[in-house]
């Protein structure tokens, strides 16, 4: 059994100006694990990509709720869950291919999932068309000192 020692849940309106708020919240919560600057930057980038996906793809031209759950597991791992109740993804495997994007007009590089994958230790994507998408990430923070 893995031990959850702390958690936080927030709901953000899906406005693009809340992208920076979401990554600041995640970085502030993660700071209790005494992460390096590098690890904090990894977390901020991964959260930014996930929240942007909710806004750009999940809700498109509408504004909906974005739920973010943060947990500390076993005093060394940050768990991040970010969900929307938007349109969902038909083919998750295809969506996760680097450079694949359904929003070229927004100048999305199609790298969101690639960034989440490379800057965290574990990435899971669960989606149902018409129901929404949930992204779960784990980031292990090296113990120091």
């Amino acid at each position, binding site marked *: 059994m893995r031990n959850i020692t702390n958690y936080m849940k927030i709901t953000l309106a899906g406005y693009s100006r809340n992208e*920076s708020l979401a990554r600041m919240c995640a970085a502030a919560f993660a700071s209790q694990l005494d992460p390096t600057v590098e690890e904090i930057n990894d977390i901020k*980038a991964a959260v*930014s990509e996930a929240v942007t996906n909710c*806004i750009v793809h999940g809700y498109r031209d509408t504004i909906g709720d974005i739920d973010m759950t943060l947990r500390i597991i076993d005093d060394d791992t940050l768990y991040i869950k970010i969900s929307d109740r938007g349109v969902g993804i038909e083919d998750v495997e295809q969506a996760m291919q680097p450079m694949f994007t359904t929003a070229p007009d927004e*100048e999305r*590089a199609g790298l969101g999932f690639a960034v989440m994958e490379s800057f965290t230790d574990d990435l899971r994507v669960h989606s149902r068309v018409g129901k929404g998408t949930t992204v779960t990430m784990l980031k292990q923070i090296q113990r120091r000192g």
Partner: protein
Amino acid sequence: MPIEFTYDKNGLTAAISGEIDHHSAAEMRIMTDGEIERSMPRTLTFDMSGVTFMDSSGVGLILGRAREMKQWGGKVRIAKPSERVGKMLKLSGLSPLIIKEGAKNA
């Protein structure tokens, strides 16, 4: 202003300051497109030394401007990325656009 534009013999330099995400990139895109469509420079150099955060929206911003510049045969270069910004550029395959330290930015 998130972007300062300066011209020299090498063309246009766009010095970006602050965070580049999906939200801020929208204004940066409008500002830069306005500038390059007016002056049609041969080279657009993004000076990244003032960038404190960048996600893949920065990659989209650079790729989009490279596409615009192509209309008149112009090129995009990237100068002074932090280690962090460099990590994102490497992941996206944009590293070849980075001007090498000490090299002439021709």
